[in-house]
């Protein structure tokens, strides 16, 4: 086994299904316009929970993405979301998949994955009606059934890697894809995350008092929590050499990756772990902190997470913290899909040279002394973007993107 860190990896395709857009142009345009899509939860019974705010994609119809495919319409919601995002991403990349058997794979991150399938089983257990059909249906809950569905649909016969690292899982998936490419194990990878809205997840966050009663206000004074959401986002990764050879349109280069574990507390984040992952990403790219022009933060809107991230950024960047933004203020927290969604936004920021805003900002919090691009998108020189993500268990992963010009050798 060998590891070729010198191999340059680029993004040549994007796809997304989010509460503010089910294609990349709509998603990014609405993100830049500050569209906040937090609403009352309708898909699950929240009448006995501590909040009723959520970011469900209520107008998602898989038929719009796969017309004439009743087989896909019969799949679980996480698979449908993932397939819809992957379809866009594969079409966008236009890579000759069939020419590379066993050399194009999938890396997918998730938190709860096909939660609604599990909920159907628990409903039947509760009512005493778990019959043989119900038992068989539970197989569809397996998280790898989502990544394998992507592989089956698009004929991706390389490695399929399914990572259960929760809210940072899709950054971990991008890291796994990057490793596979640099080792020469594959010629391209589809990487991202997908999660469907989850009853038990919502109940858990509700019981922890983590859900905002209105909207998420990352890094803001008077922030009151996060808001659970759902969705899927995908990136298509290949070598720069491959992209150049086939004349592919390149969004940006993935120049660095780092991961860490806080080893501190199961729910309380530790700034040191975030710094460690970010530094590892910077070090792997040979980039210094002052070269970072924009940070796409984890930015959930909870007191503890935003405070820890702010402390981490102060430690990492010193007095010159670049602009830091969180699209979770608009799309909620899409769990395992969140960081992939944020990568899509970051890559569009590089392409369009505009910073997405952190919406719902009420005023500066002393614990979060950041320029979080409050409430309004901002044109800016966006060259190098650090995308950080954290999760329960203290698991952090950071991805570093850099603008690449057509003139570059």
């Amino acid at each position, binding site marked *: 086994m060998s590891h070729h860190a010198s191999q340059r990896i680029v993004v040549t395709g994007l796809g997304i299904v989010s509460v503010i857009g089910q294609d990349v142009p709509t998603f990014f345009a609405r993100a830049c316009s500050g569209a906040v899509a937090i609403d009352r939860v309708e898909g699950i019974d929240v009448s006995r929970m501590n909040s009723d705010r959520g970011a469900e994609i209520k107008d998602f119809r898989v038929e719009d993405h796969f017309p004439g495919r009743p087989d896909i319409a019969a799949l679980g919601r996480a698979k449908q979301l993932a397939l819809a995002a992957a379809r866009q991403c594969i079409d966008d990349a236009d890579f000759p998949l069939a020419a590379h058997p066993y050399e194009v794979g999938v890396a997918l991150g998730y938190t709860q994955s096909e939660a609604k399938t599990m909920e159907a089983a628990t409903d039947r257990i509760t009512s005493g009606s778990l019959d043989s059909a119900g038992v068989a249906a539970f197989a569809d809950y397996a998280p790898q059934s989502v990544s394998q569905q992507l592989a089956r649909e698009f004929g991706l016969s390389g490695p399929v890697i399914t990572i259960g690292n929760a809210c940072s899982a899709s950054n971990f998936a991008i890291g796994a894809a990057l490793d596979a490419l640099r080792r020469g194990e594959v010629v391209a990878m589809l990487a991202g995350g997908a999660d469907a809205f989850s009853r038990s997840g919502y109940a858990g966050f509700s019981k922890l008092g983590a859900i905002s009663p209105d909207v998420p206000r990352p890094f803001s004074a008077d922030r009151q929590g996060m808001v659970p959401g759902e969705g899927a986002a995908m990136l298509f990764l290949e070598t720069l050499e491959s992209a150049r050879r086939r004349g592919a349109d390149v969004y940006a280069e993935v120049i660095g990756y780092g991961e860490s574990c806080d080893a501190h507390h199961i729910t309380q984040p530790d700034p040191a772990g975030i710094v460690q992952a970010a530094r590892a990403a910077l070090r792997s790219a040979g980039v210094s902190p002052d070269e970072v022009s924009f940070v796409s933060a984890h930015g959930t809107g909870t007191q503890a997470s935003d405070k820890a991230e702010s402390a981490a950024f102060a430690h990492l960047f010193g007095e010159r913290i670049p602009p830091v933004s969180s699209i979770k203020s608009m799309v909620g927290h899409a769990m395992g899909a969140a960081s992939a969604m944020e990568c899509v936004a970051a890559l569009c920021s590089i392409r369009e040279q505009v910073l997405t805003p952190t919406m719902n900002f009420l005023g500066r919090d002393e614990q979060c002394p950041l320029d979080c691009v409050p409430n309004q998108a901002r044109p800016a020189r966006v060259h190098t973007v650090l995308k950080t993500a954290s999760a329960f268990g203290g*698991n952090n992963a950071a991805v570093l993107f850099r603008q690449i010009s057509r003139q570059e050798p």
Partner: protein
Amino acid sequence: MHPRLVITAASALTSYGLGPEAYAQGVEAGPAQFSPMIGSYAQEILCARVPAYDARQLLGVRSISNFDRLTLHVCVAVDALHKRLGFGDTQQRRALLADDRVSLVLGSSGPLQSIVDLDLQTIQEPSYVQPSIVPNLVFNVPASYAAIRHGIRGSCITLTDGDTSSLKALAMAATQLESGRIDLALVGGAEEATPAYALYRSALAATDGQACPPFSEGAAMFSLERAEHAAAAGRTSMAGLFGCAQVFAPDDPHAGLAACVDKLRRRFGGLLDALTLVYAAKDIDLQRVGLDPCRRISLADRLGHFGAMSGSVALLDALVGPSAAAGELILIVQADRAGACAAGLLQKHATLH
């Protein structure tokens, strides 16, 4: 050709007891003992459980009420692995190896009982949900508890890729080491024998129109490091890992495993021709996979299905079981029913003393 990565210690919880020695003795004595899964949601299912152990005593803590069965297995296995490495406690390891140079990579189907229990509590009454168990919804939390206990800061990852999970975990740990991100990986697989896991195994079998075969639970963990790093630390190699390969081949596991073998052959050439032992399910035709006839072991026949920890149990058997001799070249192959295929090529260096 010498492998660049070596396995220097192993720990195990199986139905034969705690420790690799218990496994070695048990597997030589006879097949696993199965009994009906208590509290099963569906049909009666047979499983081989890890014998009851005193987790508080083994882990040296009083507060384990938040730990579900999978978390206990993982934490006990990781604790034991530390001791096998000669690290009596975290401080001792830390003095020799910084926290951020150690990772934990686990293959598992996840804490399914915690997930089902939390949803059942939610249906009954959301206010009954216990806050302390909410994190147990997350598939990576069992490994994360072990990482917290031992200050493992390099990374902590859980892969859920069906029966190939722990071989893929081994491949990921190898990549972390070869990229230079870490110096020591604690890697392996774990599963829980719970009603929710039994439901999952039943569901997998039902989709194939079959009855659920007996399954086993536990954990098998290994320390993987670069050969020169192990030598510098004075740790003896139990086995060398040449490499892993993985593909996805729905509907044709033979084609998938043949592709894995082909990938390994391109990297390691004639080594594949010198194989003397293959771990493979009994329905795998080795010739169709591109392998010459050699000894093969199908553990599931005697021990039940290990699910996501299948690859790590095969590795455990190769390292400490009676089947493999020091010096043998060994291939472990796994093909998941859905199409995931993986293979790992290793050479046994020493027999467990």
